[in-house]
């Protein structure tokens, strides 16, 4: 084998190792990717499809991932783009926004219904049923929900969420804050009425 051939053989072997390492790392993240995907779309089936499309694309374009960077964010960026490409229903933000309640809104509702001391109880939030949380989240408009899901369920930083959604960090923060307030309003409507 000539030196050139030996170098080429080493290059191929090195690339094969990188690829296997990439694939293993990506598959280890599948559950975490699914948990986010599940709350970005309406059904389990859609979430499964979206995750499969994401991984199909990731396995094809693994070379564009830079080793050592945040792979979970890289995968979620593919996933959120695919979700947009799937033509998720464009949801026009109504011109007339409902009066936005403050951050104490839900707590105040609970206190009004059960008394101020109820807020101290550890189980107070558990009385907002689990289904209530899922339904309320599904009711938050897409733009706001994407950010809330990435940060509060996916545990991404503001900066990661900005990169994943390709929006400025200031937009992440304002959508996150509004999205959480909307979520609390929905929870109050769905759980306490």
């Amino acid at each position: 084998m000539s030196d050139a051939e030996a170098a080429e053989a080493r290059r191929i072997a090195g690339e094969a190792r990188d690829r296997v390492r990439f694939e293993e790392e990506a598959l280890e993240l599948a559950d975490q990717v699914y948990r986010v995907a599940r709350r970005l779309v309406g059904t389990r089936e859609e979430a499964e499809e979206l995750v499969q499309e994401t991984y199909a694309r990731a396995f094809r374009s693994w070379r564009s991932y830079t080793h050592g960077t945040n792979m979970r964010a890289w995968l979620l960026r593919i996933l959120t783009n695919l979700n947009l490409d799937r033509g998720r229903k464009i949801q026009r933000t109504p011109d007339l926004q409902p009066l936005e309640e403050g951050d104490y809104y839900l707590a105040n509702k609970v206190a009004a219904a059960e008394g101020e001391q109820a807020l101290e109880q550890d189980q107070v939030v558990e009385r907002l049923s689990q289904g209530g949380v899922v339904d309320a989240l599904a009711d938050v408009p897409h733009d706001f929900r994407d950010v809330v899901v990435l940060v509060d369920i996916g545990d991404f930083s503001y900066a990661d969420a900005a990169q994943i959604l390709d929006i400025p960090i200031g937009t992440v923060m304002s959508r996150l804050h509004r999205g959480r307030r909307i979520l609390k309003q929905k929870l109050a409507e769905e759980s306490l009425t």
Partner: protein
Amino acid sequence: MTTHDPGCDKCEELLQGYLDRDLDPAEVVVAEGHLDGCDYCRRRYRFEEKLRRYIRLSASERMPAGLMAKLAELRDRAPGAL
């Protein structure tokens, strides 16, 4: 403590940034200074912390059985797969 104390309004505004550890030091002083003396706001901050944990827990759904096998299959079918 009343709900209409202007300090409570300010504290309510700072809640998300405080729990996200995203306030500047001067704002942290304002929030903590108020929380020290205000049961009303302290209860609401604790409620919010519990709520966040609960939302994360109840909205998080495990990957369905079988999806991992499908993903491994996609890996094996990808162009140039080993």
